């Protein structure tokens, strides 16, 4: 068992399960802030999944994608929070 095999067949399914659970809250979340929190969590799980893919495929360029996803997720969360606060 190599590191790549473990990353692909053991770690990735766990992250996929976590993504499905966060997506469930994104769908059922009773209020808009619940959905924003679920989206934020989905972004964090996405960063983890991209990191695991970077290990599994030995592709170091994916790391830049993870950093950019983190940046975009943060900006999106801040924009949603300002929108909610202005509506309050």
């Amino acid at each position, binding site marked *: 068992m190599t590191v790549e095999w473990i990353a692909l067949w053991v770690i990735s399914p766990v992250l996929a399960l976590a993504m499905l659970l966060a997506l469930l809250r994104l769908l059922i979340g009773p209020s808009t802030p619940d959905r924003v929190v679920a989206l934020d969590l989905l972004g*964090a*799980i996405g960063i983890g999944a991209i990191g*695991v893919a970077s290990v599994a495929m030995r592709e170091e360029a994916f790391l830049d994608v993870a950093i950019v996803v983190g940046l975009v997720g*943060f900006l999106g*969360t801040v924009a949603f*929070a300002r929108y909610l*606060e202005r509506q*309050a």
Partner: protein
Amino acid sequence: MSALDLLSVALMTIGALLLLLAAIGVVRMPDLFLRMSATSKASSLGAGCVLLAVAVSAEHAGVAWRALAGVAFLFLTAPVASHMIGRAAYLSGVPLFAGTVCDDLRGRYDAEHRLSSGDTPDGDAGRGDAEWTS
């Protein structure tokens, strides 16, 4: 497998389990603020652990430094984002869990609060102490 590979696998496993824990928390917790208490810490720590595993298993030092920069960025931005969501949610009146025993913020904020940088025409002139335009 070398010792570095074992360390990388261990960090990846811890990170993935922390992210799963955050996802379980966001589904099971009864209230927005409890959900945020589950996600904001566990998700940044989980993604940080996974990026640290990438840094450990990287072949070049530049890749490892980029992964560490990603961890630092994550740890700087996650609390700011969580604070902004929590503030916006409290001010917009998201209901608290029925079993809440302590709400320290009740009555201690301006219920008519508006963002002072808003683009509304009548805005919040004459209210608040952080006025940039008068």
